[in-house]
């Protein structure tokens, strides 16, 4: 199934219709297994049971970044290969990626609360995730203001690629910024020792999150194609009644 075959929206819609139930089933299964393993995982010797929040926090961070990577690939599709579904994929991925990044921030602050005594601390990694979240909101705002999808597509693609190039730079500068202001009161949010009994549930949860992302993304793409079809039909409706 060459990528080009997917180019035809109607075939994509048919495929999405068939694949969605299976994907949804796989996601539910993965979550079922993941949650059971997460809750039976041993407590971390240092942080006790709060380590269970990590099973949400870390996968959410990975998925937030996965979202932006997916958008960057789609940006290439829009700008370089002019693939008709590229912008649909990018636009559909933005809210989902933003939601996962937000979840990462929320679980991060809930995890930090018992340890640092405050719900937010300018830890380097958490701050970079916050910047990523702001960039997601920027792209969402851009899509919201551009009424005509074609124009919005190219603008969003460029912003996404510029963002992708800047993310490592931001990560580096935030790390440096964090070490520069090494406040005594902050315990470095060191990654907990990945004990196998904790690692496996983490990976399963990560898989579950990934499947969830893909399911939602496929469904959101289907919605976007329908939305654009409504738009074209409305244009035709205006032309026809003009005749």
């Amino acid at each position, binding site marked *: 199934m060459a990528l080009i075959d997917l180019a035809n929206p109607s075939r994509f819609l048919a495929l999405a219709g068939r694949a969605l139930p299976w994907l949804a089933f796989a996601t539910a299964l993965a979550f079922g297994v993941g949650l059971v393993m997460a809750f039976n995982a041993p407590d971390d010797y240092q942080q006790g049971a709060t380590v269970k929040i990590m099973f949400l926090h870390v996968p959410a961070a990975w998925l937030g970044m996965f979202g932006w990577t997916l958008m960057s690939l789609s940006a290439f599709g829009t700008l370089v290969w002019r693939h008709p579904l590229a912008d649909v994929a990018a636009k559909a991925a933005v809210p989902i990626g933003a939601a996962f990044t937000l979840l990462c921030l929320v679980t991060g602050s809930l995890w930090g609360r018992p340890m640092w005594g405050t719900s937010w601390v300018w830890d380097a990694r958490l701050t970079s995730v916050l910047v990523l979240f*702001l960039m997601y909101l920027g792209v969402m*705002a851009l899509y*919201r203001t551009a009424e005509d999808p074609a124009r919005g597509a190219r603008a969003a693609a460029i912003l996404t690629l510029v963002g992708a190039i800047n993310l490592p730079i931001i990560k580096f500068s*935030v790390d440096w910024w964090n070490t520069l202001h090494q*406040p005594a009161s902050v315990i470095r949010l060191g990654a907990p020792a990945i004990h196998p009994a904790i690692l496996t549930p983490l990976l399963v949860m990560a898989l579950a999150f990934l499947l969830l992302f893909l399911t939602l993304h496929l469904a959101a793409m289907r919605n976007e194609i329908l939305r654009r079809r409504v738009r074209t039909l409305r244009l035709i409706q205006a032309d026809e009644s003009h005749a």
Partner: protein
Amino acid sequence: MKELAALLMRDIKLAVRAGGGALIGALFFLIVATLLPFAIGPDLALLARIGPAMLWIGALLASLLALDRLFATDYEDGSLDLIMMGRAPLEFAILAKALAHWLTTALPLVVVAPLLGLLLNMEFQSMTFVALTLLAGTPALTCIGLIGAALAVTLRRGGLLLAVLVLPLTIPVLIFGVAASNAAIAGPVPFGPPFTILCALSLASIVIGPFAAAAALRHGLE
């Protein structure tokens, strides 16, 4: 009265729909508040102390910069002419537009403020007080900004001109807004006096703003 309700609803619908400017102010506010710690450093104690001031500056800029398009879009598509030919007095029509703008731009700021208080490591109690002062102060910012927006239309140059024209006028609101918030948090000064003055400023500007803006529109438009 019905005309004003129709105008209010139209402006709210326009702001909320795609392309409308409803949440852009809150987003700007979020980004401004997030940038500050990068400049000041993650020193939580310092951030907590200057938190109220930061939130007020952010809210001030967010609500003013979003005002720039208040009359400009209506002027460009010809709606402003018809609004001036309505049965309702222009002052009340402007007040309806101001209310619509306040609901869709300034109110989200008040809602987002406590959330940003988290970033600046402020206690929950101080966050609610800052939100309260913002709630009392943002009507003044909107109504003062009205005058700038009307002038910007007649002079046909929007953007930063509005901020330059209007920012000096908002200094009293800023002073009493931050004073009230700090009084609530640190508090040698009692919360009451600055807060009541802030409310007085808002009430005064709700009266002055629309009249001045209407005068500017009437005499400016060629």
